[in-house]
């Protein structure tokens, strides 16, 4: 078996058990319910800000967007304003499409080589990674936003509306939220890709499996609380509202599963800034996407541009003067 995913899988299991037994066995409600969540939020924010400021402190010496369409040149040639923008509006549009619709991933193709039949390389549109990624990110976003019902009282109507839309299928009791099921399905798909697609298996690191298992753990514990094992939701909200209003309380009758769920979420928060999950911030800062392709029209300044040793024309002419004169090439100094 592959230790690249066995180690992260075991780690997530252990983390779950630590919190579960810590609460159920050792009674560490305050530690797992109050101390850890606060620390996790702190670590998340501090780490995130530190990382982004670190990126910001590095210079952007050249304007080097990856151009994915026709440039702006002659007025009668139709420019691709989104994939090769020359204005900040175009760049914004490109970034919005990139951030919200994963435009680049949408282009994904799959290459295949048919040896002997035709010896042809063929490229087919590969949409599943895009669908999986989009499903994962949006369902996760909806799940996170829905959780605002635990941090607000009264719950704002926009959150209620979101819950209503998310539960619109009115299936089962309590009513099924599409986002939760989709989140689990999408993470399982992304995991299956890593395990069964040989190329992706080969490039995957433990650091790719860990967040997946962690999110699967969070989704499973959350879903099981809602649909199977049941919890006292008013008690849980007392705890979360206590956290949000800085007057933490530990409610009675809330079991280990909830604390394990909360602990996994906390781990995700704390782990976030130190991991590849920082692509959340990084996508905004990618210079191949967030710059306009107008380098010839508008000069870009390199903050650390320095003078270099060049070979001047005078040195060149000194070197070749005789030959140049002989060949009838014009020279500056006739000697």
């Amino acid at each position, binding site marked *: 078996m592959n230790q690249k995913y066995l180690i992260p899988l075991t780690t997530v299991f252990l983390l779950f058990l630590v919190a579960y037994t810590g609460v159920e066995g050792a009674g560490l409600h305050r530690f797992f319910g109050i101390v850890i969540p606060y620390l996790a939020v702190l670590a998340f924010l501090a780490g995130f800000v530190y990382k982004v400021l670190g990126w910001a*402190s590095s210079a952007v*010496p050249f304007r080097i967007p*990856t151009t994915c369409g026709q440039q702006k040149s002659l007025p009668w040639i139709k420019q691709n304003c989104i994939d090769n923008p020359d204005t900040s509006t175009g760049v914004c549009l490109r970034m919005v499409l990139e951030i919200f619709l994963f435009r680049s991933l949408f282009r994904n193709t799959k290459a295949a*080589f048919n040896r002997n039949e035709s010896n042809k390389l063929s490229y087919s549109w590969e949409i599943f990674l895009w669908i999986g990624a989009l499903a994962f990110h949006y369902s996760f976003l909806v799940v996170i936003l829905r959780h605002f019902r635990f941090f607000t009282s009264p719950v704002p109507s926009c959150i209620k509306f979101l819950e209503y839309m998310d539960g619109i299928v009115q299936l089962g009791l309590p009513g099924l939220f599409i986002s939760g099921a989709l989140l689990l399905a999408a993470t399982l798909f992304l995991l299956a890709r890593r395990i069964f697609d040989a*190329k992706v298996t080969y490039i995957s690191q433990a650091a790719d499996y860990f967040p997946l298992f962690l999110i699967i753990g969070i989704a499973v514990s959350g879903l099981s609380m809602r649909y199977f094992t049941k919890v006292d939701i008013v008690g849980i909200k007392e705890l979360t509202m206590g956290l949000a209003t800085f007057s933490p309380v530990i409610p009675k009758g809330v079991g280990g599963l909830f604390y394990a769920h909360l602990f996994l979420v906390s781990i995700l928060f704390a782990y976030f800034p130190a991991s590849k999950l920082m692509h959340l911030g990084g996508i905004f800062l*990618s*210079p191949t996407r967030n710059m306009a392709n107008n380098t010839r*029209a508008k000069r870009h300044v*390199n903050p650390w541009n320095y003078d270099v040793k060049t070979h001047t024309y005078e040195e060149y002419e000194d070197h070749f003067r005789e030959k140049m004169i002989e060949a009838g090439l014009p020279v500056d100094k006739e000697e």
Partner: protein
Amino acid sequence: MSDQLKPDELLNKIDYAPGSGNWMDNTASVQIRPGMYCYAAKAESVQTLGLPNARPWNPLEEDWKLPDNWQEIVFQGLKDRLERFRTFKVFMDICVRCGACADKCHFFLGTGDPKNMPVLRAELLRSVYRNDFSTAGKILSKIPGGKALAGARPMTLDVLKEWWYYFFQCTECRRCSVFCPYGIDTAEITIMAREIFNLLGLNIDWIATPVSNCFKTGNHLGIQPHAFKDMLEFFVEDIESLTGVNCTPQFMKKGADILFITPSGDVFADPGTYTCQGYLILFKYLKDKYGLDVTWSTYASEGGNFGFFTSHETMKRLNAKMYAEARRLGVKWILGGECGHMWRVIHQYMDTMNGPADFLEVPKNPITGTVFENARSTKMVHITEFTADLIKHSKLELDKSRNDDFVMTYHDSCNTSRGMGLLDEPRYVIQNVCNHFYEMPPNTIREQTFCCGSGSGLNAGENMELRMAGALPRANAVKHVHEKFGVNTLGTVCAIDRAALSTLCEYWVPEVRVAGVHELVGNALILPGEKKRTENLRLEPMTGFEEEDDE
């Protein structure tokens, strides 16, 4: 090329299923193998440029004669570059290894070597970055097994050799960057890795010697001024015998309207020479018809810039000649010939490095009145932008039928497509000088174009297996249109392409030849006072004149 693999043998080796296990574990077994690597830089070339650690060395030998503190140099080199380039720092941190780039690289598609997947090429460097620079990596590496968890590894000689092998198997074509959801550009990472190599004196000779030539003599091939003039005069004679018109160019004429700079490869080797003759015919036409004064220079006689494949600093040192010569000659603006990486440098770097070009005028075509707004600051215009503008305003008399023996397709060069976006201009020119034009499949052109497999200084002779493997995706698409539409000519606006694609076609699709866009312009353009042409610039009979020739 006698001991080279035959196309069938090369195809037999392709297998896209990577082995199992951890790629980091087989670093030590990476064999630098003949046919796949380029010879080491000659000491004297490194010396000319004053770059560090000039000495004879051989990549196949155990001892690379590195400085004692090479690890420190690598560490410091990485550190400096992480501070200087946000691209580098962000790209080190945010890759999620989704694998979208994996099968986008022509070297992966041609070799099946998993370390040629762009993501792994970058991971070769990232694994060391995680070990030396990331907080998480440092903390994790303190616990047993933590290094594996973080995907980190220390910088060892084996790792350095693996870097060297694989970062000289990347042509900086940026195709992966088009598909990356974060725009991670492997070219940028390769550029950084090669900068590090140059700190240790680990360049390849196919880059180092052209760079040193270009620095001293003005062009990569080391053509001295008198020889450069001679070579162009050769073309003049050829053109005169063909058309009866003398197209003698001007050299370093002070006060000319336009300075023209093109890659020296076009002066030196077929089929670039025909493109060069196309330029001469075009300039003669514009001079006679409209009085446009274009000058060439032997000092700035290189459009290309192999410095770009060495380091940002070296790129700047070579590029400086363009503005320096334009200033000395007092021209209004600069016109650039057909070249790929030359245009990446001009479009995305030149003004920043060596500008502002306030001594030049905003480029305006005096014949059509068009102001090239997109080159307002850099003041350098691509020749296909220039020619397309002339054709659009009907300023050129063209006889398309003279190119009837050219059944064309067009290869977008990586740099002009993904580092500039010059896509429709050359197509417009081709379609106005040729009757037969067919596109290759959509996944292989425009921004998704495939590299020739020999870019970024890898067009040497000793790494032919690598080049032909990398050329496979492009060749496959060419073969497709050759079989489907009878395409016999692959058009391009890149000097490296003209050389590399010729080799590619000879190997994979021998029925197809390569032509620069301005070769076709040269054929079609009707010079004032010319005699009836029956042959094209290659001295082959034009369609309809074959029989005359037989008589």
